[in-house]
Each structure stands twice: as structure tokens, then as C-alpha cells.
């Protein structure tokens, strides 16, 4: 049996990542290059997030991993078990109990606190990539605060669809200065990033970039004054817990196209069901 270092990566690599993270925290939203390593899972499955988590995790942390809001999907389960084996730290599905939350495509419904760190897995860190194909040109645009062309895309969306069409990965302005991709979280989650008490770290493994939003940093979704940003949500009720305010997944349950809505955040949903059962029990007594 090969003995791995704590959290898989060797100490020098982790220090390199931490240095990059410090720089990222110092310039909110700015993409910092880092020496991304090969990880024992393919690019696109969270290699960036997993390296950030490995760099910051300690013996007394408690880790939660979610994928599209769910704790029980293959990717989330695999990454959680990877860290259990490589660090021996406890994992949890409870948002409130976790000190580090690694996520793909969602921010938990329950508000995060100052004692928590959220690590996003990022496929494409460059918000301008569809508008500026050349990376050096895009970096110049960031350096010169030259973001007018991003509004061209919003203009086109409103012109063609009557509203801003990006339902996910809607670009945000961090600290009034740096344009940032929030990673492919739904637009619904964008407002949660604004002045969040928890530290937000972003890792893009294939693109070799890290960025960060320090606690309580203003994060504003791009919009027009006469077409304000609208966090979209399916107009429905969770079939399990009855929530009318959480972000919902639409699920087709038979061959006739019958559909149901369920909370995408499984911990939030389970928590509400437990709470309802507890109340019912108390009421029945």
C-alpha cells in the first residue's frame, strides 16, 4: 500500500496553491494562475475544486461535497470518500455542520457563516471567453477595466429573448472592479454571493486558474437599469418538502411527461421534512 501525504498532494504543491489563493483573496475576482496537477479524476469532474480543498483542509475540518445541490450523486460521493481516505477528516451532508463545502453548480439554500469556506468547481474561469477568443486580449480587458462588450451580450439577450437569457453562469462584478464568472451556478444563487460571510474560493483545474471572493465583498450581477437582474426559479413547489422558495429541479417521472419539482439542495429538503415530522409528532402528542 502506497502511503499518500495528508490530503493527497505533497506539501510543496499545497503551499503553491495557498500562495495563489492568498493572491486571489487580495484581488477579489482576479484570476490567478496556478500549477494545476493531474488528479485521480478527469478534468471537468472537479479537479480545480479538489485541489483547492486539498490545499486548505486540516485535521479538524468537516467536509461537505455537493453536486448540483445533492450530496448523494456519484461525483459528490466519490470526492467525499476520496477526502475521507486521504485525510481521515469527517464528512457530513449537513450544511450547518460543515467547515468546508465543495460544490459544483449550486450554493446551499441555508445561509453560510463566517466559520465556513465554500469551494466552487469551475469549468471556465474566463467570463469573456465567448466574446474574446484570445486569452491575452481578455486579460488586457480585465487589466484595463474594459468590460463594455459584456453588455453587448446582455443587450443581445434582451433584444432576442426579451430578458437576459443566461439562466446559469451569469457574470458578476466583484468589488466594483473585476468581472467574474460565478461558475455555472444558477442565476438564482447569484444574490447569495453578495456580501456572503463565508470565504468563497474558485478552482479551475483544466484552465489552471484560481480566484476568490473574500467575506462580505460586494458581488453584483450585471444588468441594465431598465432591465434589472432577475434570479430565475421554476414556478413550483417541492413535491417532498413543500418548499416554495428553494431552487427546484424538474423531474419527469413517467413516459407521459408527468413532471414533478424537487428541491435541488437535498440537505435543505431533508431538513425541512425532518422538521415537519418533528412538529407533527409534537402536535400529535
Amino acid at each position, binding site marked *: 500500500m502506497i502511503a499518500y501525504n495528508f490530503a493527497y498532494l505533497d506539501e510543496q504543491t499545497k503551499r503553491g496553491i495557498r500562495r495563489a489563493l492568498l493572491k486571489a483573496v487580495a484581488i477579489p475576482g482576479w484570476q490567478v494562475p496556478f500549477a494545476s496537477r493531474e488528479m485521480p479524476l478527469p478534468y471537468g469532474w472537479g479537479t480545480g475544486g479538489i485541489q483547492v480543498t486539498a490545499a486548505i483542509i486540516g485535521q479538524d475540518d468537516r467536509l461537505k461535497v455537493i453536486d448540483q445541490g445533492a450530496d448523494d450523486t456519484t461525483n459528490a460521493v466519490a470526492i467525499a470518500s476520496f477526502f475521507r481516505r486521504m485525510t481521515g477528516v469527517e464528512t457530513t451532508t449537513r450544511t450547518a455542520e460543515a467547515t468546508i463545502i465543495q460544490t459544483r453548480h449550486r450554493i446551499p439554500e441555508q445561509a453560510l457563516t463566517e466559520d465556513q469556506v465554500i469551494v466552487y468547481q469551475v469549468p471556465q474561469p474566463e467570463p469573456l471567453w465567448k466574446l474574446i477568443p484570445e486569452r491575452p486580449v481578455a486579460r488586457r480587458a480585465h487589466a484595463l477595466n*474594459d468590460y463594455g462588450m459584456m453588455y453587448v451580450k446582455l*443587450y443581445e439577450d434582451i*433584444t432576442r429573448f426579451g430578458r437576459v437569457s443566461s439562466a446559469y453562469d451569469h457574470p458578476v462584478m466583484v468589488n466594483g472592479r473585476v468581472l467574474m464568472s460565478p461558475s455555472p451556478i444558477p442565476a438564482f444563487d447569484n444574490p447569495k454571493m453578495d456580501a456572503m460571510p463565508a470565504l468563497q474560493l474558485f478552482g479551475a483545474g483544466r484552465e489552471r486558474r484560481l480566484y476568490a471572493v473574500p467575506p462580505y465583498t460586494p458581488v453584483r450581477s450585471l444588468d441594465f*437599469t*431598465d432591465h434589472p437582474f432577475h434570479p430565475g426559479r421554476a414556478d413550483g413547489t417541492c413535491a417532498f418538502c413543500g418548499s416554495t422558495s428553494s431552487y427546484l429541479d424538474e423531474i419527469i417521472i413517467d413516459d407521459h411527461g408527468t413532471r414533478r419539482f424537487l428541491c435541488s439542495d437535498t440537505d435543505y429538503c431533508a431538513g425541512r421534512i425532518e422538521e415537519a415530522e418533528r412538529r407533527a409528532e409534537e402536535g400529535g402528542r
Partner: protein
Amino acid sequence: MSLLLEARFLNKRFSNVDALDNVSLTVNRREILAIVGESGSGKSTLLATLAGLSPADSGHVLYRDAEGPHDIAAMDEMRLRRLQRTRWGYIHQNARAALRLDVTAGGNIGERLMMNGARDYGEIRETAARWLDEVEIGRERIDDLPMHFSGGMLQRLQIAATLVTNPELIFMDEPTTGLDVSVQARILDLIRTLVHRLHVAAIIVTHDLGVARLLADRTVVMQGGAIVEQGLTDQVLDDPHHPYTQLLVSSVLPS
């Protein structure tokens, strides 16, 4: 007439060719200056240097605003970009390269406004519509994609997308070359009307003496990277002194 842009002793070499050879010129506010000469005479290099797109090896380009003259080579990049996007404009020969063909006509015109901080969709759209009328494309085409436009319409769209910020100086690199003759005449007419009404100064590079004759107050003639003759357009074209200018003028086909 007050001075707007001034070039002093510009020199630029490309390997063993003098692209610019001690070029000095001035452009006043509201004045239209034509730069004529044959292919390879350094016209486009001069225009790019004046517009701050490519630096000269030596010499200065001075731009004057209310605060006095600024050497554009010494300006920081953010400031130069802002200048190029607000007070200046650049109209390329190839409108296809300058415009976003997969973005609607309205979006193309709005881009410069949005780059300058416009954040009200309704206002941007109304301004774009007004400019489409102005360049005779018509506001009903506002949501059409430029990839479906004809060459003449593309050039009109580029003109609208450049003039929308009310610049005080525009650079034009062969704006009508590559269009057919009837379209050329109408675009020239449009440029002349707009430029005079908006009181914008312009520097036009052209190899077509007819364009210079029609639009320009003054004309400079370039050969081998140097200015060989300059003066009022009528003077230069009707009474050319330099042998090269005489050759240029005499080689225009009688119409």
C-alpha cells in the same frame, strides 16, 4: 481654427523600408484632411500611427484638448483606449472585420455606448435606432444581423457605430474602396453630410483623388514614406508642383 492633432517628425522603419520618413502634419478642429498616395507609400502606416494604434520609432503625435497637448505615446493605455472610444473613431476599409457580424445592428451601434458606461437598454436602443435612420439603413433593421447586410450597408453601419459617441476626430482608412461605384458615391455623400453637420474633424486615407476632391479641405501627398506636397485640396490637385503629384493627377481617368 484651433489645432486638434499634430504630428512632429514621425519616423518608422519596417526592416529596410522607410514607412514614415520625417512626417509632420497638423489637423485643425472641424477640418478634413486627405492623405493620398500610391500603394506602399506609407498612408495607412501614418494613419495607424496618428490614431495611436502603432507607435512610431521616433517623433511625436500630440493631441490637444481643453487641458492642452498630450503626447499619445506617453498616455497610459487606459486613457488612450478611452480616447479612442469616445473622442476618436476609426473607420476601417473592411467593415466586416470591424463589426460583430453575429450581433444585431443595434448591438453593434450600442457597443461603443456600453463601453462608455451606458447602462439603460431603452436609451441605447433609441440612440441606435436614431443612428440607423441617420445613415439611411432605417430603424426597422435594428434587430437584423449584419451578416445579411450588403457591403454598402455594412459600411453605413460602421459609420453609425463610430459616430454614435459624437467623436471630434475620426480616422478613415479607404472608407469606400471595395464598394461598387454607385454605392461609393452615396457613402461619400453620407460622410460629407454627417461630418459637416457634426463638426467632426477627419483624416481620410485614400488612393482615389476623387474622394480627396469631394471631401477634403486639405490634402497631403505621400511618396516613399515622405510627404512630398501638401496644401488646400483644390490647390494641390489643380496646380500640383511636385512631379509625383503631377503624375498622380494626370493619371486619373477623365470621367
